[in-house]
């Protein structure tokens, strides 16, 4: 007797342990196999882009903290770069170096969470996740020293940073840099060659080079597919052209490559921080900028290599104290466009890790 079977729809999220916030996937399942998937978002929409139109240019910085809330420093930097481009402000040398150090520390912190939660999605019950949080804690301590905050730093200012780094910052940073490579080796030992992880992540959720370029993916997701594209090299901002670092790339573009890619990028970030520490000159940390900025009429696009990919702020000024329009290019959202192609045909468990390997923050997707 032939049984009548039919696919059924499973709502993964918005409240689900591994949707990284309030993301929702409407999955059509044939048994365990995912036949189709439809991402649904908008559960965290706060209208940030509209809010910017009623705030002063400086007042927008705290809003950017709340976009990708696990990489606030990077958001700050991308926004102030756009405003400085718009208003033509020259940033003091020392401030540029501080910004680079902060952005790279933030990259390490955000990638730690990305890797940790990816391994958590694989089912390694919170152990790698909490180990990575242990190191993130040290970075957050450093940020607390300079900004007084532990999540939404609000540290960058138009024309510099809010205040100079305190005296105890540099010794603490040096100590962190000495320890961190050892911890990275520890993570590699823990799971990098684990047979179960290889079986779960290798060859799963392949994003080919062409697909990655076509959907304009960026960041680790793009580089894991073998494209050597990093805005720090391709279109250097701040003082990134003065540092020596490599762009690690993957070969296949599967979940395992994306995981390895992130660990490799952390090592490069540590290299940059080390060089920036040595080269850092003394001097002021903030340019003379009027309290109420009236940038000339025009438009500007500031972009940086955020931990998740290309983060851009597009600003239009009408010479008033608030931008006429502010558009944000969130890397998470653009990277998600390939999700359906990557997941279709895999099992439920794979769908979860593929989604985890893209590494999104819902605050940034919904804005």
């Amino acid at each position, binding site marked *: 007797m032939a049984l009548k079977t039919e696919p*059924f729809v*499973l709502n993964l999220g918005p409240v*689900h*342990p*591994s949707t990284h916030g309030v993301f929702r996937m409407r999955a059509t399942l044939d048994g*365990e196999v995912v036949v189709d998937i439809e991402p649904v978002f908008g559960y965290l929409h706060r209208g940030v882009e509209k809010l910017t139109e009623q705030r002063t240019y400086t007042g927008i910085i705290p809003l950017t903290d709340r976009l990708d809330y696990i990489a606030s420093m990077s958001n700050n930097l991308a926004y102030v770069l756009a405003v400085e481009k718009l208003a033509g402000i020259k940033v003091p040398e020392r401030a540029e170096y501080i910004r680079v150090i902060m952005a790279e520390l933030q990259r390490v912190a955000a990638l730690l969470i990305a890797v940790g939660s990816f*391994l*958590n*999605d*694989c*089912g*390694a*019950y*919170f*152990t790698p996740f*909490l*180990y990575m949080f*242990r190191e993130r804690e040290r970075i957050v301590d450093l940020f607390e020293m300079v900004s007084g905050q532990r999540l939404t730093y609000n540290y960058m200012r138009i024309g510099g940073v809010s205040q100079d780094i305190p005296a105890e910052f540099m010794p603490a940073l040096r100590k962190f840099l000495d320890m961190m490579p050892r911890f990275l080796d520890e993570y590699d030992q*823990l*799971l990098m060659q*684990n047979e*179960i*992880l*290889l*079986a*779960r992540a*290798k*060859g*799963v959720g*392949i994003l080919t080079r062409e697909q990655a370029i076509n959907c304009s993916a960026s960041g680790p997701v793009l580089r894991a597919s073998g494209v050597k594209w990093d805005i720090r090299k391709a279109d250097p901002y701040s003082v990134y052209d003065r540092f020596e670092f490599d762009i690690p790339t993957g070969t*296949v573009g*599967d979940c395992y490559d994306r995981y390895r890619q992130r660990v490799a990028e952390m090592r490069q970030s540590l290299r940059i921080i080390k060089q920036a520490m040595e080269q850092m000159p003394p001097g002021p940390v903030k340019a003379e900028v009027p309290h109420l900025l009236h940038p000339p009429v025009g438009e500007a696009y500031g972009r940086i290599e955020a931990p998740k990919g290309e983060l851009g702020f597009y600003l239009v000024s009408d010479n008033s104290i608030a931008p006429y329009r502010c558009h944000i290019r969130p890397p998470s959202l653009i990277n998600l466009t390939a999700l359906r192609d990557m997941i279709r045909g895999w*099992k*439920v*468990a*794979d769908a*979860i890790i593929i989604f985890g390997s893209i590494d999104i923050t819902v605050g940034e997707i919904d804005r």
Partner: protein
Amino acid sequence: MAIIDFVINNQIHLQAVPPDWPGGFWWHWLFFTVVIIGFVLTLVMGVIYIERRGMGRMQSRLGPNRTGPFGLLQPVADAVKVLLKENIVPVAADKVVHWLAPVIAFAPALMIFAVIPFQNGALLADLNIGILYVVAISSVTTIGVFMAGWGSSNKYSLLGAMRNVAAVVSYEIPLVLAIVGVVLIAGSLSLNQIVLAQNIPFILLQPLGFLLFFAAGCAEINRSPFDLMEADSEIVAGFHTEYSGMKFAMFYLVEYAEAVAIAAIITTLFLAGWKGPLLPPWLWFIIKVLVVFFAMVWTRTTLPRIRIDQLMAFAWKFLFPLALINLVITAIQVLAWPTALPWITIIINLAIMAILVLIWSKFFFKLGWGRIEV
């Protein structure tokens, strides 16, 4: 513990009479039922504490440490909390099935302990088919789990329950085949006789059998890395997603009672049960159970989870053939050298285990276990 010793001594005396002898039987039955329920529930609280503290230490955090000294009362606090919770039944649920499922899952987990000797002769029923009874009873829990998955009318629950049934059907076979090796050496199906036969722990004579049993046992009770049926990052909480209050507590208890049961069976079959020097036998038994359980906690905190097709492949392409080979080798050994020196057999068997596992794991990749080479 004088009272336990007293009763157990009496017990040995009572064993001399047939179990259907009126006074002896009822006294025996009542005493051991109370002991088993008390023992299992206390031990379950103990292992929950060990799991949470142990996992905490392994994950570089403290674990529960606020309730009582060293957080020892945490399981009690959890139990009280869960008792006071509201009992929620989904509107679309099959009420009777939903209500019955935790009961059906819970009873077998306790019943397994009826044939496990805590001390020489200290067991509820010294069945001459003891281990067969264990295998039969432990599968009944699956029915309860599937009822929970079906009765909740929740898709996550159904997925979890289906995974569980598939896993149990596959893993029973290597599990039983691993047991048969032990039975061949011991020459008895009674768990008490198996312990008495272990002059050296069978883990040394049956190292491969032990590995197979441990892996299959972990899969049977859904401990990590085989915890697919309640994979929290995929299907929320699996079959017990829709359970709350005391019914959830029952499933929670089942999970740990089963873990204790598998640890107790491993102790009995492979680690010489209650045998040990100096300390009293029942203490040895508990120590060994806790050590085995700790090994399970360790794997849980270390390893990622495998996928459903890999779970099946692991059972049918790795554990099953190895269990068959192990059975044949054991049978030949028992027939050919019934009086062989133990240490020669130990060395031979360890070498066989190492070679077999190495060769078969190479072969296993060829057979394909869901790993994609790119």
